[in-house]
């Protein structure tokens, strides 16, 4: 972490520098505002041996596992969503394809707490969760401890997450790395403090003046951040609150193709490409439509570049095209 006044870089340079093979890594978002473009870049750079230390993970993780990038996972939940299972995850755990994925479970609160412990630099945090179940039985990193103050209650001690890097997508960030999150933050403010290095990808790179207009949304301050890359539509096919809704038909297609190994490898060939080419392939009209959908429900909150018009209400309004910087 540095206090450099300008941490901006490109997505490929940030991944190249901060996500080497064997990294212990966490990703931001959770079935919404996920750093999908960054994950695709990790696959494109053919990383191997990653240890994902995380919370509930969806398509991004399924894709990384199917591409052979991941050796182990510590976390609370894996799948994708209502419209698909995590087929690659199951294939790796049950059938060792493309190779075995070692899973170590915690609960959702357990995942928050492992980041929280690391973020405040203590070795563990106690919780009532997970106590007396099989979660600690099959995860040697968890310990059952008695209350040292004598209440007689037992707790599960959750060890601090040991993270090399966190990769987090946010709505907007300045050059110094003041990252603002609109809508829910999930565990991102904690992951940014738990990791040795932090890569921020953002919908919009904004001036510090804009950050100062809403300082209460700066969940990740500059002193946590190493690199900032402007990556518009960096969460596609997921939602980015205030910016665009999820591209569920795209996502369903992924769910269908990932059921078969050959089909999934074809999907990788087709979609693991530099992000600007990816957006071009998706198409500006389609991306604009996703922005309009989100505007219908959340009014373009946190968005600087857009005018917030709902393109559905006024069909002759073509300003939506100008909003897309593919």
């Amino acid at each position: 972490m540095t206090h450099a006044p300008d941490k901006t870089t490109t997505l490929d340079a940030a991944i190249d520098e901060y996500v080497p093979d064997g990294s212990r890594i966490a990703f931001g978002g959770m079935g919404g505002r996920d750093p999908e473009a960054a994950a695709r870049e990790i696959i494109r750079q053919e990383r191997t041996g990653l240890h994902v230390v995380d919370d509930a993970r969806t398509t991004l993780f399924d894709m990384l596992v199917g591409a052979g990038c991941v050796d182990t996972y510590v976390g609370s939940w894996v799948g994708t969503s209502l419209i698909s299972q995590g087929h690659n995850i199951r294939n790796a755990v049950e059938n060792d394809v493309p190779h075995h994925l070692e899973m170590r479970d915690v609960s959702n609160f357990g995942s928050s707490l492992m980041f929280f412990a690391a973020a405040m630099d203590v070795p563990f945090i106690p919780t009532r969760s997970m106590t007396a179940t099989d979660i600690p039985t099959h995860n040697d990193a968890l310990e059952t401890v008695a209350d040292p103050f004598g209440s007689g209650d037992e707790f599960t001690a959750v060890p601090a997450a040991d993270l090399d890097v966190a990769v987090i997508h946010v709505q907007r960030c300045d050059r110094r790395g003041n990252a603002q999150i609109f809508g829910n933050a999930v565990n991102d403010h904690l992951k940014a403090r738990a990791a040795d290095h932090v890569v921020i990808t953002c919908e919009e790179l904004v001036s510090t003046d804009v950050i100062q207009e809403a300082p209460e949304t700066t969940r990740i301050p500059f002193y946590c951040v190493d690199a900032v890359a402007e990556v518009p539509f960096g969460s596609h096919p997921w939602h980015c609150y205030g910016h665009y809704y999820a591209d569920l038909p795209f996502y369903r297609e992924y769910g269908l193709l990932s059921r078969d190994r050959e089909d999934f490898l074809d999907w990788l060939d087709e979609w693991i490409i530099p992000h600007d080419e990816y957006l071009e392939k998706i198409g500006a009209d389609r991306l604009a439509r996703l922005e309009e959908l989100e505007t219908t429900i959340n009014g373009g909150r946190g968005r600087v570049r857009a005018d917030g018009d709902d393109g559905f209400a006024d069909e002759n309004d073509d300003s939506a095209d100008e909003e897309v910087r593919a």
Partner: protein
Amino acid sequence: MNEMHPDSDAGTDDHADPTVDFQTLEEAAVEYPLDVERPHDVSDDYTLTELLAVTAAHEIGNGETAFIGVGMSLISGVLAKHTRAPDCQIVTESGYVGSRPPGVVQSISDSVLGVDALVATDQMQIFMDNQRGLFDVGIIGAGQIDKYGNTNSTAVIGDGTYDHPKVRLPGSGGSNDIMTSCGRTVVMMRQKRRAFTTELDYMTAPGYLDGPGDREAAGFTGGGPNAVITDMGVFRFDENTKEMYLSQTHPGVDVDDVREAVQWDLDVASEVTTTPEPTRGEVAMLRAIDPTDIVLRGSDYVYEVDFEEWTEQVHDHWQQLMELTE
């Protein structure tokens, strides 16, 4: 206990229900936002899934905080808010409280959860509040359950091991935390003999552990499982033995059929009641929440139409529900 609660007469002399003191509006007092003829009459064309969603919605008291996940449980929560529990508030683990999503919630950070939210915070805060005992009722799903209501949503191990299970399930998510600390928990499951088991492959979330007194000894603050809703009926837990017993069957389901779908010698209330059928208003409301049957009928046709048509449909459905609930 509220006399309108569907289980008002399920507590018989041989089964003392754990205290359930929540109240819902009486059906006659429900004001449906939709224009439905004879809304309080029993529906004559409801499906089994709709019956389950309505039955789960009746478990949420008016004024309660309801901790729920995606899919069916969220549909039940939204239904409760539009019917018998207008003052309930929905809590989701990714950080939203009080949302009124205008449609199906596809993932845990789906940006539709931003609609009308009272709070947009982080996962750590939500689970701190949960462990503090601030949430009244949680709804979870599971792959396996035993007679004390302990659940498995981690792995069906079969002849394999935890590391190489027969079927890797998604994991705890928030289910462990909710069962440990939430006021009371409702479990929704498919009724299958192999799922209602005498021996869990893995205990993900704690019910009554090995029986009476165990939750208290473990220091759990939450009340534990209070109801299990399946496609055949509703189970409760005896206050003294903590064992699950059959409290009600859905219309047309025979008690002996339920016994067959449970591995242990199932305890049955001396007077098993029949699950109340949904009203016309409830069914109409459910279909307004999920007009394309994504959850209610497991349909995914809406994703098969072309992208343009999909966005139009999603937009129109959101508009419709947002106008209804203004």
